[in-house]
């Protein structure tokens, strides 16, 4: 089955919708077994890129499995994403998307929590498009109290 640019866009959007719904089973199904998930940002204080989270598929599953046992921000996260570029290579797609993450607390107050970009490498696994690598490149460096869920 041949996949086109619209399928790549839909995959990126599906990853956001699954996270927003806290449908972690569907979210994990969007990744290859070889997943590399990273959250990075540049530190002007240290003049270097920092890695704030780096997980493979197994580590991501553990992170999600343990979420119910953690004390975390209560409320809802909304991810607004626009896929600006999707480029096809011989064995993969590369997609660049801009991310805006908002947080609405239990009283209904909404604030902008973070902005950044998804840099995705997307591959075909068993005839399905899957995210093989996602780098969340944050512009925001103060993430509220800190966040337990994937961005």
């Amino acid at each position, binding site marked *: 089955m041949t996949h086109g640019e619209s399928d790549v866009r839909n995959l990126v959007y599906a990853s956001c919708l699954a996270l927003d719904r806290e449908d972690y089973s569907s979210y994990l199904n969007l990744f290859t077994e070889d997943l590399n998930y990273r959250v990075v940002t540049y530190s002007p204080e*240290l003049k270097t890129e920092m890695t704030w989270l780096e997980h493979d598929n197994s580590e991501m599953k553990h*992170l999600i*499995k343990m979420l119910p046992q*953690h004390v975390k921000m209560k409320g809802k996260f909304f991810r607004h994403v626009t896929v600006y570029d999707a480029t096809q290579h011989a064995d993969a797609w590369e997609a660049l998307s801009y991310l805006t993450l908002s947080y609405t607390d239990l009283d209904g107050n909404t604030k902008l929590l973070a902005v950044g970009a998804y840099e995705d490498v997307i591959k075909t696994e068993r005839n399905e498009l899957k995210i093989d690598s996602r780098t969340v490149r944050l512009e925001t*460096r*103060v993430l509220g*109290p800190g966040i337990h869920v994937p961005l």
Partner: protein
Amino acid sequence: MSKNARDWNTPPDVPEGHYVDARIYTDQEVFDEEQEQLLRRSWKLACHISEIPERGDFRTVDHAGYPLIVIRGQDGNIRTFINSCSHRSSMIVEEPSGNAKHLTCPFHLWSFDSEGNCVHITRPEGYEDVSICKENRGLREVKTEEILGLVFVNLDDDGMPLAEYVGDALETFSEILGTKELEVFHYHRVVMDANWKQWHETNMELYHEWGHVVNRTTSVAVEGYHDRPWKLYPNGHGTLEPLAVQYKNYPGWQNRASKMLPGLTEGEFRVVDIFPNTTLIARSTSLRIDTSTPIAPGKTLVEYRGLGIKGESHEDRVMRQKHHNQFWGPLGRNVPEDVLFVEKVERTNRHGAARYGLLARREGGKSQDDGVVRAFYQEWKKYVGREPENISVRSTTSSGMGANKRAEVSN
């Protein structure tokens, strides 16, 4: 049995020093006195030397309401200046870090060298009649000293030397910090809706480890956890006897059995709290340093640094970052929870719904004994001159080491 208002507002029936008046976290006058009498008179971590390795490298930081520039001079020495032009008080540098031979104010282009000397006044002839010249317009220098790579500043020109202030409190970190060259690889900030002291209480009272699933499983559940004594030092510092943490108890994590930082064994946890607001925590392979900057009674900036061994392999650094981030990154499993804990406390303190906070755990000075927090407030009292149990009462036993010096300081 629940309490009525009178009972709720009655001080708890525990020994002196075993509780605090909740207004200690919310009162603006107390906050202002802390800034003036405590924070501007004690040593505060500014940065690690690896953040300014080259001549001309600088970092800007805030401390007790003052913007500061920490700079390594052309002579190799580290100095700190208030980041304020001696002309019209404009901030000179905005960037969090950089390198400069001269610091030039963008407002009227006055320039200063890395020793704080004014080296350029634009169109100086306009000052000839009023005795203003480069020679008398230097920057305000702030006392700066280094210990084990940690750069501390003290706004009090007459403050005791850093080595005397710290004493032996860093004894359990001297090998970690002093054996191999370290560098900061992680830096992040949190601006929390909480009082600065609340943050440091979480670094000292380990009873709250029950609230973290990672701490419950990897530490509190470990044999010997409750047997470790705190060691208290002069000037309000404290350390806790180490523990071999079992990281594998948390699903998906492994024990930390290799690439330990110097002097640490498998899984080893160490902590030192340097009064008033700097904490170092080592977890075998990773090291965190945090320090706070109070912004308002209910708002605090906390800076977190993670350190590794300079020049280590990419593979080792990736491992060390992972271990650091598991607990302490902004997406970690521990630090965000601490922030949420203290914000929940601030929410009830804010308008007086809560009147007292208990610091009454007594476990023979062991891990979850509140003795180290009680010692913190005894030291706090010396500077601020108020009773922590009732901030309306001026302390009669304190040395008033802050208040007595108030008039002496010229900033």
